[in-house]
């Protein structure tokens, strides 16, 4: 029990530091890919510190509550993940967190915020099936939904589920808001939605959202690392490679529309997962 509490405490403190650093590296590398000098690596931390120093102004109290809910639920799912918890519960907690974020966007009257929230919902519609299929795949392979049981595997998950990993890359692109799927907040681009779902957040509350994104980034990369648990170093390298691939994709694509995203994830992502799961199932049936 004490050990579990220690892990949770460690996660709460370390994850944002790691997430912020990764975001900073992302910004520097993206700048270099575009031929720019780019900001210092610690820029995300400077940004958040500056936001924290600003006046706390919220459109209404519900908005703050939903933002807090988003943060707490993401931390909860990350903690569950680090404790080796049930993958299904983790996926659903993440969905709840995203739902809270969406409701925060709907709780204000800005049209940009509303459209951003609608798009965030569409994004959830696009990636949730893939995540659930991922959990299902883990179950088929290991006979358990628990993350900690993955560590008893002799063979990395990547070997048996390469197609699911590719589908996870698509989910990562959506979740860390990269082109071609940067639809709900227009993270880099801002072109059509100004700042989409986060338009009406400012000061410390925006900092809160930013920090939540860092937690989320760590969690998502954790999901990627899960594909190679033995040794864990390889998994971390795999996650970093996935992160780098995301940056490259971001830099070679234009942003696309939401209808295209739904079409692509539902055909591409889900079919990839289903084929992979089918193969596993057939192999296991044949083996048994």
């Amino acid at each position, binding site marked *: 029990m004490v050990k579990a509490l220690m892990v949770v405490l460690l996660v709460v403190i370390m994850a944002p530091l790691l997430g912020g650093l990764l975001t900073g590296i992302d910004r520097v*590398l993206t*700048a*270099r*890919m*575009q*031929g*720019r*000098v*780019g900001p210092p690596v610690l820029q995300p931390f400077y940004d958040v510190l500056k936001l924290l120093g600003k006046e706390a102004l919220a459109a209404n109290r519900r908005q703050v509550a939903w933002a807090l809910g988003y943060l707490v639920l993401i931390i909860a799912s990350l903690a569950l993940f680090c404790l080796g918890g049930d993958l299904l519960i983790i996926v659903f907690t993440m969905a709840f967190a995203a739902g809270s974020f969406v409701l925060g966007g709907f709780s204000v009257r800005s049209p940009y915020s509303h459209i951003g929230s609608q798009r965030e919902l569409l994004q959830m519609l696009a990636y949730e099936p893939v995540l659930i299929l991922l959990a299902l795949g883990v179950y088929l392979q290991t006979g358990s939904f628990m993350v900690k049981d993955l560590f008893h595997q002799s063979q990395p998950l990547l070997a048996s589920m390469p197609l699911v990993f590719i589908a996870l890359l698509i989910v990562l692109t959506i979740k860390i808001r990269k082109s071609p799927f940067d639809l709900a907040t227009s993270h880099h681009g801002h072109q059509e939605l100004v700042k989409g779902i986060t338009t009406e957040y400012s000061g410390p509350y925006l900092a809160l959202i930013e920090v939540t994104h860092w937690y989320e980034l760590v969690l998502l990369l954790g999901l990627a690392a899960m594909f190679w648990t033995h040794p864990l170093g390889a998994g971390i390298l795999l996650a970093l490679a996935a992160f780098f691939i995301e940056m*490259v994709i971001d*830099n*070679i694509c234009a942003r696309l529309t939401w209808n295209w995203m739904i079409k692509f994830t539902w055909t591409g992502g889900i079919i990839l997962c289903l084929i992979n799961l089918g193969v596993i199932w057939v192999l296991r049936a044949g083996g048994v």
Partner: protein
Amino acid sequence: MAKMISTVMSNLTHCPKTRLYPLEERQLPPGTRGQIEFDMTKCIFCSLCAKRCPADAITVDRKGKTLVFNPFRCIICESCLEGCPKDAISLFSHWRAPVTALYEQKYQPEPGQAGD
């Protein structure tokens, strides 16, 4: 798409094309129209520059022998340079630090020269 990947990779492995303004200074080509400067040893207060200035950035007091230049009105068009009969106006192009308040530059004849 493949073209873009090669661009991305070559950018990643080469020096960035931007520079850290204003920490790194840029070499300006000769003849850059930066700002103008008056040489009061040559000025005869004929006020031709003030007359030719399209932005009314120069005011010359012919009797009081003073010339007031407003750098914030100046559009660096070189009209005054072309109009000056004594070549008393020259260009220079140093980097000028930003300021928080507007100011005017007053020019008076150098002592002992009294605008010959």
